[in-house]
């Protein structure tokens, strides 16, 4: 197989890993942030603890822990040696790491949506469920987008960590080619360029999403006068 094909496949692997971790991570971050804001104190405390641990550990340790630890845990539980694939372990580990940071961004963003927004919906007889998805979440999204975007760029590069548990990603491909051809500079350089290209495309898409999420704030009235609008953007602090 040509090196181009190999590198293309490795790029697809890196992107697949990053995107599936993003989706899973966002769902977990949403669950974590809601749990931390919940009125049930034990749940909030337990979630904060998990998040603190995840943020306190070196990321590579989380990856190792999920990959080797889960096999071991499954062995203890079922007495059988079930191996989970490096890709699955990598996705779980990366989404856990992502969600630990993203949940803090989301929590801040939820708190930045004024209480009156919910009240106006409740006063019109709109159900809580509907209010959450139609009124609260879209406004949270605007506050959280810059922070979540930063964390996505970090996640993209963290995918390189899972080369260490044998996921055939861009970094692993570069290392193997570098070793076999004795041209490390070239092949690591090519890997670097591919990472950079993905980052640039991501940034471009993020910018467009941000201006779309801010499209209702185009007039000069918005910042100074609108009593309905807070212009805090707490999301950026946590990346």
């Amino acid at each position: 197989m040509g090196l181009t094909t190999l590198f293309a496949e490795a790029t697809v692997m890196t992107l697949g890993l990053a995107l599936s971790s993003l989706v899973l991570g966002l769902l977990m971050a949403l669950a974590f942030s809601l749990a931390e804001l919940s009125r049930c104190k034990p749940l909030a405390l337990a979630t904060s603890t998990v998040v603190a641990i995840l943020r306190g550990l070196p990321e590579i340790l989380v990856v190792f822990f999920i990959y080797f630890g889960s096999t071991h845990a499954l062995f203890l539980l079922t007495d059988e040696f079930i191996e989970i694939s490096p890709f699955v372990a990598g996705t779980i580990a990366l989404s856990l790491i992502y969600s630990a940071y993203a949940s803090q961004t989301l929590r801040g963003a939820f708190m930045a949506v004024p209480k009156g927004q919910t009240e106006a919906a409740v006063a019109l007889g709109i159900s809580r469920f509907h209010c959450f998805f139609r009124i609260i979440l879209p406004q949270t999204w605007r506050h959280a987008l810059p922070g979540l975007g930063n964390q996505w760029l970090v996640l993209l590069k963290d995918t390189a960590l899972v080369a260490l548990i044998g996921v055939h990603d861009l970094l692993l491909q570069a290392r193997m080619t570098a070793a076999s051809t004795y041209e490390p500079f070239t092949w690591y350089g090519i890997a670097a360029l591919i990472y950079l290209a993905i980052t640039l495309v991501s940034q471009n898409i993020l910018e467009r999403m941000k201006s779309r999420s801010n499209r209702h704030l185009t007039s000069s009235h918005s910042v100074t006068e609108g009593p309905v609008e807070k212009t805090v953007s707490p999301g950026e602090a946590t990346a």
Partner: protein
Amino acid sequence: MGIAVQSLSKSFGGHQVLRDISFSISKGETTVLLGSSGAGKSTLLRMLNLLESPDQGSLHIADMAFSFPQKKSPSSNASTKACQLRRKVGMVFQQYHLWPHMTVLENLMEAPVQQGMSKAEARDKAMGLLERMGLPDKVNAWPSSLSGGQQQRVAIARALMLSPEVLLFDEPTAALDPAITNQVVEIINELQASGITMVVVTHEVDFARKIASRVVYLENGEIVEQGTAERFTAPQTGAFKRYLQH
């Protein structure tokens, strides 16, 4: 029957905010709730559509009856009933609380469409109301591009989308330029002519005089004086008299 309130009380963490409140308002009347800051006006208004739940007492409004403390029957039942109440009792907040990520039209259509009105019908109704509020050209504007007075009229239109029997206003003029106050007076008088029962909390005696058919005066969580609009010229208690003279 409009609104009847019997012996309502409410405390926030040991601090009694409303004490033994009773009054009744017949259909189609405009009642003004007056009182100095902290008297409990907003809390009382919010109870009328159960945004606050009273500790004790009973509430009859828009042909529905509630008594407190509510029996620990299936709680979902109580919240469904509260939801039904709120579709008949609209509220316009002091800060309007328009949803900034939706256009004016979307703000108006959200609640009725969720509650089963067809989109076409909701759109027609919204257009009609915006016309009535003098904002036909703002249909597709974002709330943040509107002035305070325009935002308020959108908030009123949004509440009217559900054709409420009762409309509650918390300090409708407080955030507005004094010059716009007369617009609000006109709108409220027009709504009164159309038969809606209204309860309006305000600080401004002049504004109150222009709209009220009844007045309720609160001090420290208790009703000190209530009666028809004639009380403005002939107050019966020293306290209300002093309040009117500020």
